[in-house]
């Protein structure tokens, strides 16, 4: 026995070895590969594949603007500290470049060989200039003169005119012009492809064919007319991605709203991180770009096809072609909300769990709308992180304030890339008389809580909704999330205390059931994992199942390794980044990790602990990342209702049984298909939708059967 102990402590020492971890950025790239896999998947409807291809691009844009930008900042600052996987910033930079180059190649292979062909079969054509007929050319000439020409700003670079500032993520055309005196170097010119115009120009319909031309191609065709008198020697499209991770200088920023408005202006001018050019670009032109934009060679991407595939998203929403999309799955009403009862009565009777997007988000909106009108309601408090444009929730809150309710809204302005939108509706709320609070300095408010305070016949009663997903009616249609409605007074008291803290009215007082980051949540997770490890030692049984979006935090990974060493069975369902390396002999052999990427974006965070048979289940807004646990306000809440616990256990089990959209993480950080042999074929997301439909039918049938029966009280 003693020997075993020594053995174990030795293993624990080995935990620090960097080879036990996967680099965060590379892991993210693997995740994006999974998205690309969906674009390649013939069994997905064509237009959905276009969407996936587009998402690969928009994901990469954000990745370069934030993550790669941060690594290049580290390199510029001569920062050489290694990451958890043992790579210096420079090493990471090179590995990212290599992997990203491969990915983009694969993405364009998919686009050129598969998607374009697919579109052709549907008689949708993306035409190149040389494929145009005379008639079409004529049409485009007049289109150019009328619509494009007025919004173009052709520029040249010479001694009196410096290189212009190129907008982040804008598409541009660069060109070389013949110099006026033949001995001189050619002149460099650039023109932005206007983002106000549609990227694809549709040509007049010809029979059943629908043909499109790229805006940049039309500009190129007419380039000579823009630079009259100068011969265009060569031209090419290019696009840059800038550093947008300008960490907000909050200290001393008295007015957060103002600071963010200023930051937004600043964002356009971060350093250039990535340069995309069309592959046939003239070397001289390319060298000028690289020099002027100060880009590293590794971050120059030669693209075989149109730059910036995000236009595919727009294309996939083209009217008609319903058969090229997923069958519509209308979110179902949660069976608990089927009867048209007072929503407050309903929640008073029992806790209700809602599984989005299979079950509708409408009930959340309904709760806020009812609260706005209900005479018994005194106050509404809500956190808002990302909301949709014309959000019905924002509207209902404004309405409530106008009806004389005390409405407190905690708006997180720092939700990345959404700031502009956030400021707009924050102002709308303020105008209506809501108390709008802009979060705590230094901490992003990421938790999703809604509190309604009501004065009922038997006193004050609090209704709480807590969720893993944002209060956004649009994303609730394609993010998988879980939300809990409850009138448990302890949750009510905790929610009040949380809002008092967030609004600066109070220090955090004792919490009954909710754990809060950055205060107790990290310790709670570690405690739960360690408890499971200890249980395994003492009783021989231990099991952890967790579903989340990212696992990056070193302390948690090590705790999981220690649990695995003791033999705790660990199943993780992690959609995106995972720095934990599974299957390391004697360290992580008991850990299985799968990633589900499908029609809906996996977003719920669920944590299950066997706990010697007294199973504990928690839902949370937090991932296992340092930023969630240390720099954001997050919550985790226990699920106590037995029925709901069963429901969540089912959800976890089905996710673990997914053979279609799930992939197993391998030791090298890449993903592999599930071995389907001898297994039932399950697509978890389809299963959940079917389940939601059946549940509604079942409930309706039940209600019908019981309609005429008198209520017998036994």
């Amino acid at each position, binding site marked *: 026995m003693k020997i075993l102990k020594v053995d174990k402590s030795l293993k624990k020492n080995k935990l620090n070895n960097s080879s036990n971890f996967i680099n965060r950025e590379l892991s993210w790239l693997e995740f994006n590969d999974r998205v690309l896999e969906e674009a390649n998947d013939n069994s997905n409807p064509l237009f959905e594949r276009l969407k996936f291809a587009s998402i690969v691009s928009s994901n990469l844009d954000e990745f370069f603007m934030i993550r790669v930008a941060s690594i290049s900042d580290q390199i510029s600052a001569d920062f050489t500290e290694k990451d958890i996987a043992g790579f210096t910033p420079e090493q990471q930079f090179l590995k990212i470049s290599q992997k990203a180059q491969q990915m983009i190649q694969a993405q364009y292979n998919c686009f050129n060989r598969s998607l374009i062909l697919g579109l052709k079969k549907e008689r949708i054509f993306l035409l190149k200039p040389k494929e145009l007929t005379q008639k079409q050319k004529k049409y485009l000439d007049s289109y150019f003169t009328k619509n494009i020409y007025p919004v173009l700003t052709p520029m040249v670079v010479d001694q009196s005119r410096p290189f212009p500032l190129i907008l982040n993520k804008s598409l541009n055309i660069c060109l070389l012009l013949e110099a006026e005196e033949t001995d001189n170097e050619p002149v460099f010119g650039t023109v932005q492809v206007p983002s106000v115009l549609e990227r694809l120009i549709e040509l007049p319909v010809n029979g059943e064919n629908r043909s499109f031309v790229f805006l940049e191609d039309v500009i190129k065709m007419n380039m000579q007319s823009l630079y009259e008198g100068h011969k265009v020697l060569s031209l090419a499209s290019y696009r840059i991605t800038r550093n947008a991770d300008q960490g907000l200088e909050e200290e001393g920023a008295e007015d957060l709203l103002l600071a963010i408005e200023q930051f937004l202006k600043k964002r356009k001018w971060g350093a250039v991180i990535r340069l995309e050019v069309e592959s046939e670009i003239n070397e001289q032109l390319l060298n000028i770009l690289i020099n002027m934009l100060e880009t590293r060679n590794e971050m120059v991407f030669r693209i075989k096809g149109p730059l910036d595939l995000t236009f595919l998203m727009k294309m996939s929403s083209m009217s008609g072609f319903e058969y090229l999309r997923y069958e519509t799955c209308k979110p179902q009403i949660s069976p608990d909300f089927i009867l048209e009862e007072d929503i407050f009565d309903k929640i008073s009777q029992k806790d209700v769990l809602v599984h989005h997007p299979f079950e509708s988000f409408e009930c959340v909106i309904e709760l806020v709308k009812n609260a706005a009108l209900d005479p018994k309601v*005194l*106050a509404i408090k809500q956190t808002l992180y990302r909301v949709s444009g014309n959000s019905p929730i924002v509207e209902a809150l404004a309405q409530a304030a106008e009806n004389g309710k*005390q409405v*407190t809204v905690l708006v997180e302005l720092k939700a990345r890339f959404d700031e502009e939108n956030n400021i707009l509706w924050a102002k709308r709320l303020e105008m209506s008389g809501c*108390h709008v609070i802009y979060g705590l300095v230094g901490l992003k408010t990421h938790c999703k809580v809604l509190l309604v*305070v009501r*004065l009922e016949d*038997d*006193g*004050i009663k609090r209704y709480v909704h807590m969720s893993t997903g944002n209060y956004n009616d649009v994303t609730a249609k394609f993010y998988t999330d879980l939300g809990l409605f409850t009138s448990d007074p302890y949750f009510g*008291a905790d929610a*009040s*205390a949380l809002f*008092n803290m967030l*609004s*600066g*009215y*109070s*220090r955090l*007082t004792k919490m009954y059931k909710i754990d809060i980051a950055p205060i107790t949540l990290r310790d709670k997770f570690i405690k739960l994992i360690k408890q499971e490890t200890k249980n395994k030692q003492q009783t021989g049984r231990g099991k952890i199942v967790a579903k989340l979006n990212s696992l990056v935090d070193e302390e948690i990974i090590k705790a999981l390794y220690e649990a695995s060493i003791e033999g705790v069975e660990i199943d993780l369902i992690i959609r995106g980044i995972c720095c934990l390396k599974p299957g390391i002999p004697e360290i992580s052999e008991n850990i299985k990790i799968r990633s589900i990427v499908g029609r809906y974006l996996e977003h719920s965070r669920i944590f299950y602990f066997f706990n010697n048979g007294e199973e504990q289940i928690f839902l949370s807004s937090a991932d296992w990342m340092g930023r969630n646990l240390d720099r954001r306000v997050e919550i985790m809440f226990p699920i106590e209702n037995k029925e709901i616990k069963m429901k969540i256990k089912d959800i976890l089990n089905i996710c673990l049984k997914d053979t279609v959209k799930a992939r197993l993480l391998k030791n090298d950080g890449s993903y592999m298909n599930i071995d389907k042999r001898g297994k039932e074929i399950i697509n978890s997301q389809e299963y959940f939708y079917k389940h939601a439909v059946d549940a509604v039918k079942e409930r309706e049938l039940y209600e019908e059967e019981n309609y005429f029966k008198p209520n017998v009280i036994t």
Partner: protein
Amino acid sequence: MNKKKRDLFAAIDVGSNSMRITIAQISNEGKIDIIEDLRLPAHIGRDTFSFGRIQVNTIHETCDMLNGFVQIMKDYRIKNYRAVCTSGIREAENKEYVLEQIRIRTGLGLEIINNAQERYLMYKAIRGIIVESKKSTEKNTFIMDIRAGGIEISVYAKGSLRFTEYIKIGSLRLREILASLEKKTLDFPSIMEEFIESRIHFYKNQLIEMDINAFIGLGGELRTIIDICNREFKTKDEKYLSKISLEKFCEKIKLLTTDQIMGKYNLLREEAQVMLPCVVLFNKFLQTTKAESISAPLVSLRNGILADFADAFSESENKNDAINDIISSVWYMGEKYLIDIIHSKHIEKLSLLIFDQTRKIHRLGERERLYLRVASILHDVGKYMNLSKHDLHSFNIIRSQDIMGFSDRECEIVANIARYHSEEIPHNSHENYLVLEDRDQIIVSKLAGIIRISEALDISHRQKIKEIEIAITGRELIMSVKSQEDTLLEEWSFASHMTFFEEVMGIKPILRRKG
């Protein structure tokens, strides 16, 4: 008819180091449900204790914080609230400006309360807890509150307050007094114990006789002590500190220096410094009782304020309990000054009888009745100093007392009533009378009028008049008395006091002897 009624109340405490608000729902049965409890750190005490006045920035900060509290009150549409502040603002030179700023900028009327009111509210809060566990009403309960300057000890027996004392051996004070000794001896804890022993010796036997079997502790870092003991001895009591744990911990801590205490138990210097005196004090007093543990109720001023609201709102029995506590403590005070108890009881009885029978005439309320009652009990305390001018001495003694639950103003009123119970009548040349508000002058005069009649009727201190009936006819107040004895002295005295009564009340008292 038995429909439950509920209302929401807020209690705000602007303290030296923190500001707190508690929002509670109180039913007409007197049940208090806490809905919200908020706390923010404050710097009022720091300013007052180091500069003597509250800095402008602190006033801004305080108003901002209070505005948050006001918003929470709005959330619940609260109309009934009481906001109090204690020494932090009380001792600031610019307190009037601070209160005015707060009133203008937050709309909150903040009330400065004195030690006696603080104590009254704390006892109210504890009483709620004592009442909750029915058994303890049968117990003799010892309450000990360790503050920085002194300790407050009291005993409740059979549901009423029997004993209350303030001894100047507070935790910080002990440290300061004995600071010079700390460097001269290796056995500082024993010296401290000896010193404490010398100060409490006088009460010790009294306490042992009272047969105490329950012990409630307040202040004195008690919760920190319980936390440490739980860790040290692997116990899990949140609200109790057992005798054994305390003894063990006391022995342990005696061997440690302040720095070691800080390090070992992870405490701030301020906490560690007072740890030894607190532990020794609790231990010493616990030894004099038969209680097996110290219970540490989570009570605060705010609980007291809410309990006060609950009594007013619910018209429960507790209201009388609170009055009884005040009266018991007043009797205890009187006994210390060796008053003639039988005489005082008689005056109390006569005064209240007259007061109750003449309500239509004087139109005073319950609170004023309480002033009369307290003044009746204490009117002769001045005799302890000197028989001549004893009324003046009574005035001085009473105004220097902490009468539980009485504000400074109320104490002055009672002292004034006592001053005018015998020879002198209020006059504008008396400064003590002149400084009173107009309204308070009337109260003093009316109540003095009543107490003077009572005093006249027992001028011999022999309780000759056992029964008295009062009737109002026209502009006369007929007092028919029965007595077996010769009451000539009383009648003569009555005649000399009736003019003042008539002047103040507008009705002429007539004494009639019946048999």
